[in-house]
């Protein structure tokens, strides 16, 4: 597995390379956005870790250029305050973000999830099993503790969108378009109402979530670990 680190700070590059290599990844590093786009084309990495605050090209622009020729998963590294930058980077095609300073285990977990999603298509799972929850995607049946849940078509579509992108941060805009259609994108109230209803039916507590995590102002992430 090849990982490309794009960050202008040499210390960060070193701090990322050592633990990633220790985990068995092959790591290359560059310091500018231009070099980053070229490196993606030439080295064809399996994962890109991209700093949003690059000196030459805006991080969102880097993602857009990469997306012009590659579907490689991109995880953004950003500081806390650049919330709107994060959203636009995610909407431009980034897969996830971690906030600096981050714990290495968190970054590794995000990296694994991104690589898993991008990995060779596993035969589609007809059913997904979690601790108490089971989802039969073929028959569109959802059961909690063995009892069948009655979900509205919208709730089911929302659940399906979430579980088919495990670990990925899905932006409000992406979810609205996926569930409600292309004409939607800003109606976050709808989305919030349905997420709340879905959480209630799934028995998930937003203040100690085990299935759906809220990223305020950005979107939602499915964190349920399927067995």
């Amino acid at each position, binding site marked *: 597995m090849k990982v490309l680190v794009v960050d202008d700070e040499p210390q960060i590059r070193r701090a990322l390379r050592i633990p990633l290599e220790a985990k068995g990844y092959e790591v290359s590093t560059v310091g500018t956005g231009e070099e980053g786009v070229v490196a993606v084309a030439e080295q064809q990495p399996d994962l890109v870790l991209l700093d949003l605050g690059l000196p030459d090209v805006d991080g969102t622009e880097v993602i857009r250029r990469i997306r012009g020729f590659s579907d490689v998963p991109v995880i953004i590294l950003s500081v*806390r*305050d650049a*919330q*709107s930058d994060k959203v636009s980077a995610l909407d431009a095609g980034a897969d996830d973000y971690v906030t600096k*300073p981050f*714990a290495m285990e968190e970054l590794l977990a995000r990296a694994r999830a991104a690589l898993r999603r991008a990995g060779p298509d596993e035969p589609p799972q007809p059913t997904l099993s979690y601790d108490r929850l089971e989802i039969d995607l073929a028959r569109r049946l959802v059961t909690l503790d063995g009892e069948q849940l009655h979900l509205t078509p919208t709730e089911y579509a929302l659940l399906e969108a979430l579980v088919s992108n495990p670990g990925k941060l899905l932006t409000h805009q992406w979810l609205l378009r996926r569930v409600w259609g292309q004409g939607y994108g800003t109606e*976050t*109230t709808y989305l*919030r109402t349905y997420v709340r209803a879905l959480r209630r039916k799934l028995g998930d507590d*937003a*203040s*100690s*979530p085990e299935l759906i*995590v*809220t*990223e*305020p*102002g950005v979107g939602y992430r499915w964190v349920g670990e399927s067995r």
Partner: protein
Amino acid sequence: MAAENPSPISRVTLRAIGIGILATMTAAVLAAAVSQLSTNPQSGAALAAAEVAIFMLGVTVAAVSGGLWAGVVSALLASVVYPIVESEGHSFHVDFEQPQQLIASVVFLAIAVVVGLLVGNAADERNRATRREREARLLANLSGKMLSGDVPERVMDEFVQVLLEPLGLATCQIAVTLDGQEIEAKAARTGLAPGGPTEVIPIVVSSVPLGTLIAERPAGRRPLTRDERLLLEAATRQAAVALDRARLDARARLAQLDAETNQLRAAMFSSVTHDLRTPLASIKAGVTSLLDLGTRHDDAQVRELLTTILEETDRLNRLVGNILDLARIRAGALIPKRVPTAVDEVAEAVVARMRPRLAGLAVDLQLANDLPEVPADPVQVDQVLTNLLENAARHSPRGGTLRIHIGRADGAVRVRVADEGPGIKREEREKVFEAFYRGRESPESPGSGLGLAIARAIVLAHGGRIWIEETTGGGTAMMVDLPLEWSAEETAL
């Protein structure tokens, strides 16, 4: 008397002539009526005396009510009319050679002049008194306004406005330079065309010229009288004194602000130095002992050192975040990027994220149903809730409960974060929102003293309010209202 009308025959003169004529004619009619009362020729002398008395009365009335000129007109007319009336039934010719008639005319004129002059003097005296009173009132009024401690701009606005009417000005303006700042005020009376005689009076304080006052009379009117000009100068001197005072006040305020800023800066430096160095010291100590290959640590020791390093890194990160936020607030760069934000959702996410740090405390999160979204910056709302929770956790006893309630208030979404700590004394409640303030109970608490100051700055930038209430158990409840409506005119901070 000041004549406002520019025409040579003023209205006042016309009025005097009118009164003179009217008074004498009335006297003539009365005298004629009296002469008809008796046909007895023996009573001629008494009758003549009565007629003279009636004419004298007429002249006196004219002089009293119309002044000197009305009396003179009345007297002259009476000199002509009296012989006609007097000779009625005797002879019909006017003859000033007749001593009786000549004496009568002289007496009439003398009465007219004496009474007219007396009345005129009294009237002049009255006018002068009225004017002096008006001037005194004007000056008192001005000095009241000048010393009100208002900003110089507003004081000058009032000043020029107050002068307009008493001095009959069309426009009045003032232009001064105060500590490099230019202040201008101008007032004009509606319905009066400017362009008349203009007075320019310098404004001087301790022989330093500050500017000028320009008073303009309406077009075509006479210039200010000497008295009016003196009044204007007196008023201008008052304005100069007021401006000087304002200048000194501003300097004093600036000096005080400077002192406060310096004090705050000193507090900030000592606090930040201490707070930044402490975690750095722990980290460096941990790392150097791990790097010291000469010493062997067992797994548990290594783990403990690493845990310390991790915790101190997090603490340092929070502190740096707070200092950056504060710097942003100070620089006036705390501008919320408003999007429809569900405060309840943010609260859930904050609680979820803070679970590890809230270990040992129970969290009771109550969210009202169907809470509306507020126009707010979700990152900043997150920051407010995080800071309130950190503060509450820090002051909670072990095993205590944090109660977070989010509901609706009048035109706002209301957040209440209550702890079971020792509470905050009433007199300290405002102070806890000041940067670098630490409660007396816990002067060495691990907080930086910035969290609540930042929370307040953010809430205010959102047009909301933050305050402290007491819980029934004596703990502290931090209250925040975030308004549902937001208009662009509301300025941040």
